[in-house]
């Protein structure tokens, strides 16, 4: 009896949670296929008259600069992820494989930095980015994504430690230098760590709003998040078009999520616990 009850309770809570999660998304999806008149006149729960009405999507793509937003996001993503991997792996390699003066100081610096929330320092960081002449340039984002990601460094540290030192030593015996060891042995063996970082960081970059909002006002350089935000201004009265813009930003991440589910979960669990 109690068993049946708990089972019912369990499924009931899951269904409720799923409805709460999905309902706002479904209504946006409905809205995105409605015409302007229809959107104002019908109940939010009424499905659109025609699921073939893609006019809003066309507007969002052509006038909202969504494609350009995706392209800009990809450019920043590729550059920042490359930078993050190199920086993270190099740090991890140096800290794990060598004992040198100042090592504990460096470790301490990285540890302490995890306690400083990035947003608190943006007022001062802004001055530095501007001083470097990077305001309104993609490089501002790339630099900030690359240079302030300490979590990735920790992930790499964990994984470098797991690479057997005998591999390094064998390579040293073959006359390989440190750079060669780094690129030929360490990096290839860090693939699982790289996958984790790519996933966590990729989602972070795709969703980042604050940094491009602050540093990248140029409409030609806007990534997807600020493109969507800017879109809301002139289209403020056309919620059916805004809805389409929202759906457009969700679809790619949904597809990637469905394809890479296992990696995504692993990325977050290993990224978080290590």
């Amino acid at each position, binding site marked *: 009896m109690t068993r049946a009850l708990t089972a019912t309770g369990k499924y009931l809570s899951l269904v409720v949670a799923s409805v709460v999660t999905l309902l706002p998304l479904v209504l946006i999806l409905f809205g995105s296929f409605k015409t302007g008149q229809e959107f104002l006149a019908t109940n939010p729960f009424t499905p659109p008259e025609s699921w073939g009405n893609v006019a809003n999507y066309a507007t969002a793509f052509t*006038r909202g600069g969504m494609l350009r937003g995706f392209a800009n996001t990809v450019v920043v993503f590729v550059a920042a992820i490359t930078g993050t991997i190199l920086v993270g792996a190099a740090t991890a390699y140096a800290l794990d494989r060598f004992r040198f003066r100042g090592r504990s100081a460096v470790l301490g610096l990285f540890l302490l930095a995890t306690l400083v929330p990035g947003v608190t320092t943006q007022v001062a960081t802004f001055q530095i980015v501007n001083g*470097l002449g*990077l305001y*309104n340039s993609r490089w501002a984002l790339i630099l900030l994504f690359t240079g302030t990601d300490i979590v990735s460094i920790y992930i790499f540290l964990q994984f470098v430690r797991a690479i057997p030192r005998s591999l390094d030593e064998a390579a040293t015996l073959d006359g390989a230098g440190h750079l060669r060891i780094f690129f030929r042995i360490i990096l290839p063996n860090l693939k699982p760590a790289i996958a984790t970082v790519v996933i966590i960081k990729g989602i972070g970059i795709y969703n980042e709003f604050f940094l491009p909002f602050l540093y990248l006002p140029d409409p030609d350089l806007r990534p997807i998040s600020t493109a969507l935000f800017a879109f809301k*201004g002139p289209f*403020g*009265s*056309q919620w059916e078009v805004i809805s389409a813009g929202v759906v457009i930003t969700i679809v790619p991440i949904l597809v990637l999520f469905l394809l890479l589910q296992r990696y995504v979960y692993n990325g977050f669990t290993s990224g978080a616990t290590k």
Partner: protein
Amino acid sequence: MFLHQRRGRLAVASTAVALLALTTACSGGAEGEENTTGEPGGSLTVLTWRTDLVEDGTFDDYVERFKTTYPAVTDVKVEGITDYEGEVKTRMSTDNYGDVLAIPGSVTPDQLGDFFEPLGEQAELAQEYRWLADKSFEGTSYGIPVVGNVQGLVYNTKVWKAAGLTDFPTTPDEFLEDLAALKAADPGIDPLYTNYKDGWPLTAWEYYRGGVSGDPDYVNQMVTWDDPWADGRDHEVIDGLLYDVVAQGLTEADPTTTNWEQSKQLLGTGKIGVMLLGSWAIPQMQQAAVDAGGSADDIGYMPFPAQADGTFHATAGGDYNLGINVASKNKVTARAWIDWFHHESGYSESQVGLSPLIDGATPAALADFVDQVELVEMNPAPQGKESLFADIDTASGIVTTDPKYRQKIIDDARSGARTKQQVFDDLNAAWAEGRADVDA
């Protein structure tokens, strides 16, 4: 040990330097090349608050025509900015705020020279353009208004007629009664709409100052008072009206969900009775009315509900002023754009504004209004006191150019956290403190 540390520090320093060199080298290419030919040419970046005109292609047309006039101009990039004041202010912390831009309202007169290129002697330019005083400092002009505005209230004529209202209200109380009548005639409408969330439309309320009393020296007087929110002075009247209209529930029920583009539609279709906006708003509202199947005649313009000596007054002055970024690399072309914009673009005619040109005509849509209302042009501050108002305004923490000032009044009127008198008392105290701080 010591040596090692030093070397470490050196290494760090050199990394920073290397990074700096690397990154600046990378970004160098992004900026336009300096135009030193003395002739308009090359590329230009224009920042504008009119996202709607960027969106509907009006600016594309401007750019095409400008390039026809100046074939050496290769590219004009127009950036429409929704939160214009906020974003441009941020960008002004850098050199990167376009070549031509509208001068944000919160730039104080003494800062003009730090950010904007002088356009000429005020006295000389004044032979051609009106309303230069606002963006001039010590005899030099830094901006020219794109169009002239009168400050009144834009309303839906059908809605007012339906409620049986024909005459312009002459006092704030009468105005409140009228709004209540609008609500009674059709409970589904918002008699007055504040556009709280977008914020900037609230700053328009500031420019009735001087119009209420009909005193062209109101601002110059205000800097000598410790209590502008008392004795029936303009600020007391304006902010008192705002407080009352909100407290009496005559504004939009949920101010956090307002939207500028939507407000145009709502006024055009008679879901809103009236909005307090400069005359620049008229054509946009008319367009919205037409788009919704109505006619341009559905939109009317009335003076602020207050009379001095039995007459309505309205301030007339410049809208946004175009200026040139002092760090611009293409100032010649920037200047050409400004001159072209004022003389050739047709912007001011299309906006049903008063022309910024001395010999420009008064548009038909405003003729009626101008007949019943005496226009007041505010006198500039006396020499040496150009920045006094702005200094007190900033030091007091009120900052009349910031929407927060009136958003707070709305918050209090809705929640009752402060009474109207408490609001006035706090504002007077802050103003007096601001005056003391700048030794006025």
